[in-house]
């Protein structure tokens, strides 16, 4: 046994993040720690890596009792971590990123050749292919992650922690990552994998520790378990099977006609898009990201005003109109990126709930805000959506991704307007929060609202949509009814394949 963490306790204020957590790890083993957001899995790893200090408990690494004060201490004990948010120097080369702080130097001068050679050797040894001279900013995310892994290897780490490594990767890159994890374990490295994606866990882990609400629920061997059991242990209940009740759609809420938009390069990003969303239906748009979905949504919501064709929202012609006009016409929007578009990280939760509504009579009079109503509204939605926060004065950035998404979803769905556009509403959030968001979207549909759902997650589209459009190369090529199509066929169409193949 190379690592033993015993009875670790960590509290933030009155929240117990880790409640007597014990974890151990053998040499050359892949241990997965699974749990929902806020289960305490990141906290326990931050403690191990020296980013946080435990209130009590014991850590033993390679038989030595340790008390890390910083990641530097952890690195000295051969522990490395690949963080979810990469810590890279964007405009520097791969080599410069890997050798930092342990450079090969000649009389104080950076020895470009020797450092590059060292990186090349390392990358060949572990089969992590990188171009030592490439600039990080030009590398795809998967390569950037390989650089992070090489960094820990360069620092001679024997125990490597991966924090949600697949969250940022494309499916192909995930396959590469899983292969890398297996190879590292074969080379004698011990690995801790933090994740909530159970299929990845089942693919690579030797043992699995399930955490929930700050406690270790159970540690199992991979061979003795399955995803159903794991998800039950993680959530503490069985996941509900969401079924769309048959429902007759009503009047047309959104009508898009012959929408065409050019780009700077002269290529048409949107090419004659026609679509319709009616009251009481969820319309899904499936597609590989970058095929025009983002632009389509930007045109409909008024973020983009330079296009040809027409957009009608709830009977109002809003073609080429601005955001405010369109929102007034009856549309709400859950944006693709919860921090870039969806919220203000530095603002309080109640301010985030208010955004877009600050001029309505409900929350202001003659330009003066009604604080009481605003706070009440925020508190009400926080309770209704069971967002895990202390109070509505907290800042948005203090929330986990899932909770932040709940806030934005709450704000947009609870606006009393008939039509909602939901873009990637469950990207990077855990099963519990995902189920909740899905339930709310379906609830709105059942109450005669219309929803346009744009998602790169096929299972989501297939589960929720009454109708599905496939978007490829700026066009909506195919349309299906609920249950008419499966994931495999949809996947093929999304890449430009033919329906009858």
């Amino acid at each position, binding site marked *: 046994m190379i690592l033993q963490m015993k009875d670790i306790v960590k509290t933030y204020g009155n929240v117990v993040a880790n409640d007597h957590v014990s974890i151990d790890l053998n040499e050359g083993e892949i241990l997965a720690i699974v749990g929902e957001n806020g289960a305490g899995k990141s906290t326990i790893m931050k403690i191990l890596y020296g980013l946080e200090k435990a209130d009590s408990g014991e850590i033993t690494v390679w038989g030595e009792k340790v008390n890390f004060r910083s990641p530097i201490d952890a690195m000295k004990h051969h522990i490395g971590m690949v963080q979810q948010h990469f810590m890279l120097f964007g405009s520097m080369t791969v080599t410069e990123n890997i050798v930092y702080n342990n450079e090969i*130097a000649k009389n*104080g001068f950076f020895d470009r050749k020797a450092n590059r050679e060292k990186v090349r050797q390392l990358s060949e040894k572990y089969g992590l292919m990188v171009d030592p001279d490439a600039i990080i900013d030009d590398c795809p995310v998967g390569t950037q992650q390989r650089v992070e892994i090489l960094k820990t290897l360069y620092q001679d780490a024997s125990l490597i922690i991966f924090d949600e490594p697949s969250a940022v990767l494309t499916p192909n890159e995930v396959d590469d990552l899983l292969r890398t994890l297996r190879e590292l374990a074969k080379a004698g490295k011990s690995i801790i994998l933090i994740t909530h994606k159970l299929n990845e866990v089942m693919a690579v882990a030797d043992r699995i520790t399930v955490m929930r609400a700050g406690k270790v629920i159970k540690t199992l061997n991979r061979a003795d378990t399955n995803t159903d059991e794991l998800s039950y242990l993680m959530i503490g209940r069985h996941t509900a099977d969401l079924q769309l009740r048959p429902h007759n759609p009503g009047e047309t809420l959104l009508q898009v006609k012959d929408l065409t938009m050019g780009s700077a*390069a002269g290529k048409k990003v949107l090419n004659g898009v026609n679509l319709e969303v009616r009251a009481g239906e969820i319309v899904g748009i499936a597609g590989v990201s970058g095929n025009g979905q983002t632009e389509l949504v930007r045109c409909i919501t008024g973020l983009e005003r330079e296009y040809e064709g027409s957009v009608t929202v709830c009977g109002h012609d809003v073609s080429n109109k601005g955001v405010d006009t369109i929102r007034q016409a009856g549309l709400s929007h859950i944006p693709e990126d919860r921090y870039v578009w969806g919220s203000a990280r530095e603002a309080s939760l109640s301010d985030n709930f208010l955004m877009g509504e600050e001029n309505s009579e409900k929350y202001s009079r003659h330009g003066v805000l009604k604080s009481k109503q605003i706070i009440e509204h925020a508190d009400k939605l926080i309770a209704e959506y069971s967002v895990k926060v202390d109070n509505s004065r907290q800042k948005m950035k203090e929330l986990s991704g899932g909770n932040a998404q709940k806030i934005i979803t709450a704000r947009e769905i609870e606006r009393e307007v008939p039509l909602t556009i939901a873009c990637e509403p469950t990207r990077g959030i855990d099963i519990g929060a995902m189920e909740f968001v899905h339930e709310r979207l379906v609830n709105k549909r059942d109450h005669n609202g219309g929803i346009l759902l744009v998602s790169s997650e096929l299972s989501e589209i297939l589960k929720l949509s009454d109708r599905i459009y496939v978007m490829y190369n700026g066009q909506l090529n195919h349309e299906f009814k609920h249950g008419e199509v499966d994931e495999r066929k949809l996947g093929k169409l999304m890449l430009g394949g033919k329906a009858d193949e």
Partner: protein
Amino acid sequence: MNFSWTYISAIISSTFRMCSPILLCSLAAAVCSKANVFNIAMEGCMMISAFFAIVVNYFTGGSVILSVLAAILSSMAVSALLAYFIIKLKASPVVVGMAINTTSSGLTTYLMYVFFKTKGLFQRPSLVGLTKVTPFFASWFPELSQMFYGLTYVDYLSWVLAIAVYIFMYKTVLGYRIRAIGINQEAARSLGTPVEKYQFITMTLSGILCGLAGCLLSMGSVTLFIQNITSGKGYIAMTANNLGRSHPIGVALASLFFGICQSVGSFLQQTSLKGQITGAIPYVATILASIVSSIRTKQIKERKIHEAMKKTVERQENAS
């Protein structure tokens, strides 16, 4: 012909003289911005050092070495104070920088009265300026010998320093670490670099450059101290730093540009053009250069986004 050669070499010499203080200060700004600290206090550092150079010069009976040393040390002290506020106390660099710039203007005026009992201008025959140097090859081109007229060894040093700063930043391990801090402070910290210590030292050392610039002002072409001797050169240096993208060589070229503007401006004073117009030339050039620089930044950004989009599309096409 003879006249025009003389005329041109006079403009060149004046360009170099105008350029050096700007160059030194913009190098200081460049190393600071490479280390991710925003330094706008070059004006203040320069003024303080120009003043103390004269004070020490006067009280030591004209010791040039001690004067230069005093200029450097006083400027480093101001820079260290600035660094303490910005890096340790996390104060806004703009507020602290402006505070130092305005304070130094008032402080030097006040101290001038305390030390010398004069206002506005202090000049004595006993003051000794920096040694003027004519390089050995100047005599090879008699027509152009005027080119090196009035240049001191600090003027030459400023160009050597531009190259030295380049080598330091881009070839040494220390420079590489400082640049890394500038690119991603958190990443550098996560790898065990004492980021604040590096930044503090970088900023304090950048004071040396402003100190040299200061003694050029008060002991270069003329040896005296007048109120507001820097006359906005520190701010021009800020623009030169932006224009040169904080790269030592770029910064040197930008400084040269501003040097040309200043010298052309002062030469045109001898023509029939109105003094107010010729005097405004360097400042108008600064504004125009800032505009050009920001447009170019935007274009580069757009091009990068465009390339990134193209790459994504290509990747997707390859994948399918």
